[in-house]
């Protein structure tokens, strides 16, 4: 009887030992999986953030009217950084004069946007827009203006700002 009890105790010790080792291995795997998921989640969030920022900037870029030029250009500058921001802050008066002289008005919307590449500091995003443009040359009749845009973005203090807008001809 005593031998049986000791045998049961030994079996319990072995079981607890095996379970403890399994829990330790599992704990390491959980920690690794947690880190990997955190990195993936951060990267997935970057896709969303850069697409949102690029969509907003492209929308501002294709909606500029001589009647609301200062506000429209300020909207572009708000989502921009670097040389692009400089252009839409320092050259505002010249651009506004040009828009008013030509009676230019553009309108448009984003059709599709996709990420070419993104890391924790930089991103390249393609944005396809549909829209129109009218000015003195078109005799104030809207002409189709469907664009293929490529935007470069940089992360600045937690926000994604556009440093370059390129029209892909």
């Amino acid at each position, binding site marked *: 009887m005593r031998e049986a009890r000791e045998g049961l105790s030994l079996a319990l010790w072995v079981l607890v030992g095996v379970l403890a080792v399994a829990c330790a291995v599992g704990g390491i795997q959980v920690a690794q999986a947690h880190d990997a998921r955190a990195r993936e989640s951060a990267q997935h969030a970057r*896709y969303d953030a850069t697409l949102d920022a690029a969509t907003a900037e492209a929308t501002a870029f294709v909606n500029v009217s001589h009647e609301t030029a200062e506000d429209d250009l300020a909207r572009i500058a708000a989502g921009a950084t670097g040389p692009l921001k400089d252009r839409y802050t320092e050259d505002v008066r010249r651009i506004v004069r040009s828009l008013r002289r030509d009676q230019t008005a553009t309108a448009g919307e984003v*059709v599709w946007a996709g990420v070419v590449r993104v890391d924790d500091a930089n991103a390249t995003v393609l944005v396809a827009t549909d829209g129109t443009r009218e000015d003195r040359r078109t005799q104030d009749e809207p002409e189709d203006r469907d664009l293929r845009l490529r935007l470069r973005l940089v992360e600045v203090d937690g926000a994604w700002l556009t440093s370059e807008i390129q029209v892909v*001809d």
Partner: protein
Amino acid sequence: MSGSVPLRRVLLVLAVLLVGLLGVEAWYLLGGTPQPGADRPVVVGDLVARSVVDAAAQDLTQITSTSYRNYDDQVAEATTVMTPEFAATYRATAASLAPTFQERQREIAAEVVSSAVVRATDRQVQALVYLDSFVSEQGGEPVRLPYRTLVTMTKTGHGWLVSNIETR
């Protein structure tokens, strides 16, 4: 090593707790993959997304590069990279365009300018492809037509296949 009843109870309780902990660990490790939503358009790794987008761009080039010289062969070849449902739609469209290709001796050479991932899960990827299409008729100079194309790729038992193409 003691074989007392209290110790065996402690060991038993410990074993039950460890089994519970193992269950929690297994639940976490086997937990489902994130689903796409409005705030998570891409829920696969960069390498997967990029490789499927590259495949979409390559397939689109193959599908849109056609010639009156071997139109039927090219249509048949193109359908090998499509899902059966989309291939049926494509064959119908291609058949309706066949007379125009022959009459005008039309040839199209497509070239990818750039490509990007719009949405991606482990089952479906949408790629935005900027495509230049060089169209020539009756041996004339090619005219470049710039397109924006959304290619939908669906994972099937035969790999990633084109399941839809929208062009603007």
